[in-house]
């Protein structure tokens, strides 16, 4: 059982190693094969063919940050829902199905309320 468990993850580890080697090797091989003649004009950053104006790192709108916050809420929620989905049958077999189901409904409704709040606050309105 434990042997099988490690066997599964050994394949994953081997795959990561081979994948990284392959990609790194490809990049190295390419660096040996390709020409490399940088000039001042060539190494300008791209800006539709004109000289770049100002720095490359501009500010972006705050609304993108809010999406990240929203995502965090829903992703953490998924962490709770997945174990629930795997285990609910055991609880149902023990006669606790209704209880465990109602609990999840309450949880999901609270989250939906949060989403409704965010939408009402105008997170998704773009002007």
């Amino acid at each position: 059982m434990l042997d099988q468990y490690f066997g599964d993850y050994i394949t994953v580890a081997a795959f990561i190693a081979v994948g990284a080697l392959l990609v790194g090797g490809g990049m190295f091989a390419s660096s040996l094969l390709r020409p490399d003649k940088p000039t001042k004009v060539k190494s300008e950053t791209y800006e539709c063919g004109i000289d770049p104006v100002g720095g490359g790192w501009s500010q972006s709108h705050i609304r993108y940050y809010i999406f990240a916050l929203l995502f965090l809420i829903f992703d953490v929620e998924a962490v709770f829902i997945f174990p629930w989905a795997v285990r609910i049958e055991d609880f149902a077999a023990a006669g606790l199905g209704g209880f465990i189901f109602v609990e999840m409904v309450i949880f999901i409704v609270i989250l939906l309320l949060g989403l409704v709040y965010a939408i009402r606050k105008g997170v998704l309105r773009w002007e």
Partner: protein
Amino acid sequence: MTGWETLLTAAIKVAVAFALLLSLTIVLVWFERKIVADMQNRLGPTRAGPYGMLQTVADGVKLLFKESVTPRRVEFALYIAAPIAALVPALLIFLVIPIGRPFTLGDRVIDLAGTDLNVAVLYVLALSSLAVYAVVLAGWSSGSKYPLLGAVRASAQMISYEAAMGLALVPVILFTGTTSIRAIVDAQAGEFLSFLGIWNIVLVPSFLIFFIAGVAETNRAPFDLVEAESEIVGGYHTEYSGFRFALFFLAEYINIFNISALTTTLFLGGWHGPTFGAPEWLAWVFPIVWFFVKTVALVFVFVWIRASLPRMRYDQLMQFGWKRLIPLTLVWIILSTVAIGFRRFGAPWG
């Protein structure tokens, strides 16, 4: 199995998986170009090899020999790390997808999948989240305006649809009671009315949401705002050229294959399909054929969508994700739980 056998099996699987993935990508790129060409009444690639099939190989070799221009303002370490961070998770997702039924060699049973983790569904979701890192790193480390804009857009889009994608899989887990992909495929065995498979596609909303979110996750049309040429040039990989660009390209096509293969595996019965009473020595071929037929059909849908639909506007994209897909998924989780509960334990008033 002894330790050495485990290692040897792992080595063979890794080698086969890589060979398969790389050759598949070559075929897929050609397939997409040909299909789109047909839909737009063009010829598509015709010169390299029969029907232009070797065009992708030619392009790959060309990119290998092209100068990789490194702009002055890049953060070099992160700039180099980004294409690797794009490709490696894409390769790793393929590892847990079974492409055929297990076969016995002597007294050992060997799965036709890289490996079978008991948390495979979570593993897939975790790795597809990592794709966001590649995009953000590439966009930020380029030190240029268009890549940064593309990366910010892409990350907001990908995390929005990722939430829907993960939640869409909850009914599948409820239905089959496991997060192991092998067990999910096994649960879809059997036939209904002697010719229809008992597949998880009965969870239609999950299937649709997963596939739509998958199209958005891979940044494909109509959700390809990330690389909207008319607005932000190439998006996050504007400053990449040569082999480094090829890695992003490769990652995109492997991701398309992965999403199609995952949809096949989770919803369309994986490798299950009729074997037409073939003898035992031949019967192992059919599962592999069925798996690829279903997957290529889904890849065709990807291409078909790309050829048919115009690009969405960014606010529409976000509204569709947050106001439609996610609330729908949450309601569907509750409804499907009720339905599955009735099916398994009977109605409480019955």
